[in-house]
């Protein structure tokens, strides 16, 4: 990672108006969005959108033809090109031929994508953005920091300064007055402009219509007052049927700004009369710029289902810290990372893709049903193929992958750590390692790993068997969690075995784009875990569980190792996360809670993989309530804790503030105990609370459950 990029992160974090505005917005957005979708079947709606858009993405060429025919039959001029330069040339030539001196623009990301304004201005044409946010950043000489709210990073004081500097002196930081000022100044621009340029939110092939969704009314003026209207439309806006605009219009305002509908929706299907009675000259430019190429890519075709609502930005724990000037170029946030890689060049996304912590929030809210985190991983994989892995990373994986060497090194470390360890924590590390313990203490490496400890547990004779997948943290840092799992399963009559040949789950390699390594991990583990004839394979780590249930197969498929796939599927079927298995055993009457124990208040932190991939967030809550404890929900219980596996090592400057917010939310509940199903989250949160000197206890669900059963 370049120093420059790290510095841009630090600058963003040090900007209180940015982090404040984005942080507050993310909270308000979450509530607002939920209210806007009240009574609506979001899954049904987004399936409809995904179907419509995916079907369109499969035949962009055909739909573009159909659109052109329909629009041209009505007198619209349609120009289609793959080349961004050709778009700019077309508009400039048109402007010059018609003697255009001034242009008003309503918001268009497609024109941002090709830097149209600069090109036209260089040719001596006056170009005015008229969307308030776009106008502000145009005056300030900046780029949009958010796709829907381009100037969200600026305070009213900064806006007043920009207006005073660039337009008219003496503007006060009073929002209604600033808005009035903009209305007045831009009104005369609207009335005198020779050309209006807009984007479009939807383009309907069968009718040749474009749909424009706005709030300020500027698009209505842009398309009404000047005699020439040019709409620049990305090819991914195409859908086939007019009726299909309905699900998109239903979701877009709700997902974008938590509105039921924006103030204005304009559907333009042909030239209409100008104010002097002459017919409007309407040009629609269908811009490809690699969208067709994207549609031919089996993985990235999905990204064309985007309706540009920016909800992936609004729910992102990283975006709300750094904003769009760090996280993307023209298009920002999660989807922006993907679009930057395609509309620019793959390597342009090299740094921003590393910002993704893989929490999966964006995937959950995406109205186009795009698996954004997965596509970012795919970018990572392709970048690793193209550029090779960094040396240090390669060295780490060669150790992780060599089971024996890895274990030997960890044991050596458990001895080497002694000078720094106290009460099971490492609170300070010297020199270049100090970053790692600056904001949270680290757990010490256990003297005796779980793989050795389990041999000493005397297990009762059982009818059933479960294989336990330890994962690095349970095995080497928190063996007591593994012991609790054994205790619980033994009570249900299940013997726990620990297949010795198991190795790293491959998540670190996968999340770094090193798929060959991840696939090797998958193959080794599949063999090891299926070796014994067991009823269940269980893990107390959701990330490992997801690896066993899903990622092994994906890793093998990604590198074409088909021979191991069938066994991988067998393993996936047997694998369960601890809490889901325990609830099942409770339901079957195989586990009974102690009666008359004094319950405690607890709060529950949702691990990303347990909640959003395994969808198992209710199981631990219910178990602990059944055991007689009282749940006090925290704010944003399902927001990432900032651990993200190796993320916390690569980007500690972001991991730390994400954790801070989590700790605030935990402490606000006043509960003396936090329960968590993921040892990684335990490490992050327990370490953070220790650094704060808080006496809130942090336990894995298995640990409390083991004490609550008969």
């Amino acid at each position, binding site marked *: 990672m370049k120093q420059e990029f790290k510095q841009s992160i630090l600058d963003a974090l040090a900007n209180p108006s940015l982090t404040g505005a984005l942080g*507050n917005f993310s909270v308000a957005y979450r509530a607002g969005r939920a209210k806007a979708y009240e009574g609506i079947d979001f899954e049904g709606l987004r399936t409809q959108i995904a179907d419509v858009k995916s079907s369109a993405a499969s035949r962009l060429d055909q739909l573009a033809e159909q659109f052109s025919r329909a629009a041209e039959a009505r007198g619209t001029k349609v120009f289609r090109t793959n080349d961004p330069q050709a778009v700019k040339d077309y508009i400039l030539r048109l402007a010059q031929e018609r003697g255009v001196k001034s242009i008003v623009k309503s918001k268009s990301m497609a024109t941002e994508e090709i830097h149209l304004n600069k090109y036209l201005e260089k040719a001596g044409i006056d170009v005015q953005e008229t*969307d308030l*946010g776009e106008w502000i950043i145009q005056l300030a000489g900046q780029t949009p920091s958010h796709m829907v709210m381009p100037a969200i990073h600026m305070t*009213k004081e900064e806006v007043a300064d920009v207006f005073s500097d660039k337009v008219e002196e003496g503007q006060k930081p009073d929002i209604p007055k*600033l*808005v009035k000022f903009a209305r007045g100044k831009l009104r005369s621009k*609207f009335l005198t402009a020779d050309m209006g340029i807009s984007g479009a939110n939807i383009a309907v092939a069968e009718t040749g219509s474009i749909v424009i969704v706005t*709030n300020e009314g500027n698009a209505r003026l842009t398309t*009404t007052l000047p005699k020439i209207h040019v709409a620049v439309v990305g090819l991914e806006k195409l859908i086939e049927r007019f009726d299909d605009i309905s699900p998109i219009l239903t979701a877009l305002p709700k997902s974008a700004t938590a509105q039921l509908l924006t*103030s204005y929706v304009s559907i333009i299907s042909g030239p209409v009369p100008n104010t002097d009675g002459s017919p409007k000259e309407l040009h629609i430019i269908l811009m490809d710029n690699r969208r067709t190429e994207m549609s031919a890519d089996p993985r990235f075709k999905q990204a064309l289902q985007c309706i540009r609502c920016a909800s992936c930005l609004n729910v992102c724990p990283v975006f709300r810290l750094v904003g769009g000037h760090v996280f993307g170029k023209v298009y920002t946030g999660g989807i922006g990372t993907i679009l930057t890689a395609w509309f620019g060049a793959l390597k342009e996304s090299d740094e921003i893709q590393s910002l993704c912590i893989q929490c999966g929030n964006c995937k959950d809210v995406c109205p186009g049903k795009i698996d954004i985190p997965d596509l970012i991983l795919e970018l990572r994989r392709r970048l690793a193929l193209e550029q090779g892995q960094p040396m240090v990373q390669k060295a780490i994986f060669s150790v992780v992958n060599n089971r024996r060497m890895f274990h030997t090194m960890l044991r050596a470390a458990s001895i080497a750590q002694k000078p720094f360890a106290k009460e099971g924590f490492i609170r300070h590390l010297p020199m270049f390692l100090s970053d790692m313990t600056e904001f949270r203490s680290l757990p010490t490496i256990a003297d005796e790993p779980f793989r050795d400890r389990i041999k000493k547990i005397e297990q009762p004779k059982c009818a059933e068997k479960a294989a336990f997948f330890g994962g690095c943290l349970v095995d080497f840092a928190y063996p007591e969690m593994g012991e609790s799992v054994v205790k619980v399963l033994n009570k249900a009559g299940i013997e726990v075995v620990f297949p010795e040949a198991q190795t790293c789950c491959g998540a670190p390699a996968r999340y770094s784009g090193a798929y060959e390594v991840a696939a090797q991990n998958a193959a080794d583990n599949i063999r090891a875990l299926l070796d014994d004839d067991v009823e269940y394979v269980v893990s107390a780590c959701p990330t490992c569980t997801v690896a066993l249930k899903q990622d092994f197969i994906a890793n093998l498929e990604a590198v074409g190792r088909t021979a191991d796939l069938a066994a991988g599927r067998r393993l996936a079927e047997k694998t369960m996360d601890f809490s889901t298995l325990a609830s099942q055993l409770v339901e079957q009457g195989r586990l009974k809670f102690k009666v008359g124990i004094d319950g405690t208040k607890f709060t529950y932190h949702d691990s990303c993989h347990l909640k959003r991939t395994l969808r198992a967030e209710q199981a631990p809550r219910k178990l602990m309530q059944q055991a007689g404890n009282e749940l006090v929900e925290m704010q944003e219980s399902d927001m990432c804790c900032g651990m993200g596996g190796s993320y916390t090592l690569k980007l500690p400057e972001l991991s730390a503030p994400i954790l801070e917010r989590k700790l605030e939310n935990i402490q606000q509940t006043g509960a003396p105990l936090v329960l968590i199903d993921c040892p990684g989250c335990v490490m992050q949160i327990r370490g953070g609370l220790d650094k704060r000197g808080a006496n809130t206890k942090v336990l894995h669900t298995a640990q409390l459950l083991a004490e609550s059963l008969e």
Partner: protein
Amino acid sequence: MSTIAESPALFELFKLRAEAVSAQVQRVATKELALELIVRLLHQEGVDDQPHCYAVWAAGPMLNRSAQEKMERDVPGLKFTVTRELAADAKVGISQLEWALANTGTLVQTADAVDTRLVSTLPLLHIAIIPTASLLPDIPAVLRHIDPRKSSYLSFITGPSRTADIERVLTIGVHGPERLIIVMVDDLEVAA
């Protein structure tokens, strides 16, 4: 259509949703009452035959030629001939729209004629006349009634213009109207 329009729940929902986005909703039984209401509103707003005080009305089916002429005599400053200059200078714009959508508080209009857009974009106050019988539940319902093959410019209007572009503070009235008064008329026929 009439069965839907007669449903009081639909009107209540429309009113609720329109008011939630800062529109005002007035319902009257007859066209005559609607005209009286509009005249009253125009007087209240200080409409007059003076610069910056005009009202522009994009002629619609509610008024025939002679009724328009009478209105122009009754209300100085009210113009049915809408030019770009007049609309830009007017205080109030008036137009009739075709459909109302209950669950979003939206009005829908065939807006090929430029005057219909001028009066609803340029003045600060837009008075929107709508037949009560045109009430439909939602977007999918209205898509069955409008046809982009027949109309080149369809407008959906939901409340006055708004922005939250500065510090996310909702501010009503940016480039379009800052007030929207919806006059819903029970005996007004739904346009074909």
